[in-house]
């Protein structure tokens, strides 16, 4: 228990990177030793700035009580801390280079058994991205796969929301303290993540969100997962930084292909050209992932013997009857006059004029608008703006 306070103390040092923190832990497996370690030993390990910070912090804290107090104060607020020496520390993070010394979290930590997938992509995403993220998140949620992401606007949040709504678990890794909801517009997602998953962060509570925190955050996102799915990304995009880190960490990277003319898919298509895994549908993706996980022996309990041994104890069993298909919405029960209009709709928003033009001027603008609205009301279409519609 006491050990945890020292880990927290170490984790709270602003300038100390995970790399040097891990070096310190190698030299001093008991972090309490750091308080009495000879200065020249520390100086050997740390660069000057980090060395100075450690000395300063060391001078401030000569007893463990201050640390304990702080720890308990956070506990009261529902904020937990786990150190890399503890059993509950996410096992996947231990595999990555320089895992963080500890993690703050609210809610719970990712379980050890379930597969874990990061769904990431652009904040300003298209309707296509929204659709894929939602379908994928919901599918993973239904199949008991953890969805990990950054709780950002756009793809991140949408996939997490969908996973939670489908009854799955999801974990959000923040670039701020776990007590800060960023972006504020995702407040309800933040609350339900605490309820049915967790909010994780390496930053001490109270740290405001800042741009420079996000690359380090992305490292944890990919570190927590078995595979990464990139839904939409421009060529210059933070998402691609996450992909680089995932590759460094040996994670599988899957990419949703897009049209070559879509700027929001440029980053994705480029990754595909470089040899990333092709994401065609959630079903085949999950199959491949389970296969790989088996090969990697990430899930040793997959062998029949062990399965029988474990029985109902740990893993849940998911119905496998579902066969995924993109074209689920075959309009069989649709009113006849709506069908031709519906067929013109796409995931990319189309303007009313475009749709009208494709139908060869069969309808006046007002008539067409009314037909489209009826599609919206029956849940077949979505009105993006005053004049734009897309399929749902």
């Amino acid at each position, binding site marked *: 228990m006491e050990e945890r306070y020292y880990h927290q103390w170490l984790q709270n040092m602003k300038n100390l990177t995970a790399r040097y923190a891990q070096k310190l832990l190698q030299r001093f497996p008991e972090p309490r030793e750091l308080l009495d370690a000879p200065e020249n030993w520390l100086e050997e390990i740390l660069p000057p700035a980090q060395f100075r910070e450690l000395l300063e912090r060391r001078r401030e804290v000569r007893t463990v009580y201050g640390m304990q107090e702080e720890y308990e104060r956070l506990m009261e607020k529902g904020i937990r801390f786990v150190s890399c020496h503890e059993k509950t520390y996410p096992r996947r993070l231990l595999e990555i280079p320089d895992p963080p010394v500890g993690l703050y979290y609210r809610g719970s930590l990712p379980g050890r058994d379930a597969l874990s997938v990061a769904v990431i992509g652009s*904040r300003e995403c298209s*309707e296509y991205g929204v659709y894929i993220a939602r379908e994928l998140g919901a599918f993973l949620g239904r199949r008991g796969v953890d969805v990990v992401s950054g709780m950002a*606007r756009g793809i991140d949040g949408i996939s997490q929301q969908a996973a939670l709504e489908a009854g799955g678990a999801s974990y959000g890794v923040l670039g701020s303290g776990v007590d800060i909801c960023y972006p504020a517009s995702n407040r309800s997602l933040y609350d339900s993540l605490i309820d049915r998953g967790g909010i994780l962060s390496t930053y001490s509570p109270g740290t405001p969100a800042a741009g420079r925190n996000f690359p380090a955050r992305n490292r944890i996102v990919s570190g927590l997962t078995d595979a990464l799915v990139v839904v939409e990304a421009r060529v210059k995009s933070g998402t691609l930084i996450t992909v680089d880190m995932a590759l460094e960490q040996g994670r599988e990277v899957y990419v949703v292909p897009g049209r070559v003319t879509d700027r929001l898919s440029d980053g994705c298509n480029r990754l595909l050209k470089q040899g990333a895994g092709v994401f065609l549908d959630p079903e085949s993706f999950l199959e491949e992932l389970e296969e790989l996980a088996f090969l990697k022996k990430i899930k040793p309990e997959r062998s029949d013997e062990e399965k029988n041994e474990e029985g109902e104890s740990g893993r849940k069993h998911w119905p496998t009857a579902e066969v995924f298909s993109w074209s689920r919405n075959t309009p069989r029960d649709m009113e006849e006059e709506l069908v031709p209009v519906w067929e013109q709709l796409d995931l990319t928003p189309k303007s009313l*004029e475009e749709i009208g033009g494709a139908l060869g001027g069969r309808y006046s603008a007002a008539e067409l608008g009314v037909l489209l609205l009826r599609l*919206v009301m029956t849940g077949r279409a979505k009105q993006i*703006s005053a*004049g*734009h519609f897309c399929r749902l």
Partner: protein
Amino acid sequence: MYSTILSGALLGVNACLVQVEVDAASGLPAMSMVGSLSGEVRESRERVWAAMKNMGLEIPPKHITVNLSPADLKKEGTAYDLPIVVGMLEALGYFPAGKARDILFLGELGLNGEIRQVRGVLPIVREAAKIGVREFIVPKENAGEGAVIPDVKVRGAATMGEVLGFLMADAAERGAILPAQDAAGWPTAEGAEGPGYDFAEVKGQEMAKRAAKIAAAGFHNLLMIGTPGAGKSMIAKRIPGILPPLTLEESLEVTSVYSVAGNLDGKSLLTKRPFQAPHHTISMPALMGGGVVPRPGVISLAHRGVLFLDELAEFPRVVLDGLRQPLEDRRIQIARVGGNLIYPSDFMLVCAMNPCPCGFYPDRGRCRCTEPQIRRYTGKISGPILDRIDLCTELQAVDVSSLHRESGGETSAQIRSQVERARKMQEERFQGTEYRFNGDVKAADIDRFCPLEKEDRRFMEETYAKMGLSARSYHRVRKVARTIADLAGEDRIHREHLLEAVLFRPAQEYWK
């Protein structure tokens, strides 16, 4: 000697008569002017003095007193120069006493005796004619606007010499010296055509044209959202042309406002619906009216016409919020130390804006604005103004090839006749009420004027629930549905009218 001459003062766009009294008595030579005069009226003394001297009219050493009555009314403007000089000439005996009786004088004087243009001739002539004044002498440039009033003689004078000659002559010769201006022709159907733009010139943009038609028919305010170059201003400019022609009464109102503002440019009677498109850097007084010498603002110049605010999001919030009262009351009250002025401002508000700062949303391939940026952009428009805009439509960028291909569709004249038909239905509906158009109806009277059948009511509730719309827009959607039904010539609001109104629902529904 004592004399009294008729003149007039402006009160907003209304007017009242002013008596200019001149007394010339023996005493210490001086000229004093009283009667609650503003600076420019006081300066009149110097102009009158110099003009008389330059015309070779000697001013005898007398004590001259000029009083403008009613003395407690603040007198402004330069139109009193002419009545004052006429009064002096009479008091000093330059023409037989009584020759200027029952003639109303207006005009500014140059130092060489010429008579210069003034503002507000039409409203003064109109008011005086009601009281029974039949003869007017005004600056030549203003004669045309005065002459639109029936049964009066309005004579335009270029110099003071002409006026003096006129006053000295016998009744029989007078007409030859200063002929009465011909009455301007009344606006005919052709004369009331829109401002030279036709809807047939707008290619594509069926939705926006439809929205403009509905807006014109029910006097609803309209918001157009679209990428730059989509044709928002093109459509806005054509809206005055699909409104019914100005009636004579409306025409006089509009001309009065322009006359008071000094914007008449020698025209006699305005017969086209005004179209005002102020730039977004406009100041509050310029928009609302005001100034040291209060003048009507752009909203009053748009009276009975269209006020078009392009780049709505760029207008400062305070300026937009200032529109709330005029949109509600259809007139603007300007408070000054000297009293309150009221200018009419019964305009149709047409606004245009980009969907986002870059203008390409929702085309995510091109638009890189972040959601907070878009929210900030749309959030700049004040809610109370949006609450007064019933219709919202979106325009897409038009590619050049379609400009050649597509036919324009209905002409302005065709649309106007539909609008007029719809307005006739509203006239009958609102007879004996405070309302004129569907757009005016207040929330409390919606059930009375826009009734829905029971099942339609349920249908709307369902629609609102399914589409996640807010109750805030419900009344406005119903008013628009009423107008759509009027355009279709239907007494009852049908389901498709309601759905179409939902399609044009107010912008806030997208910006939540």
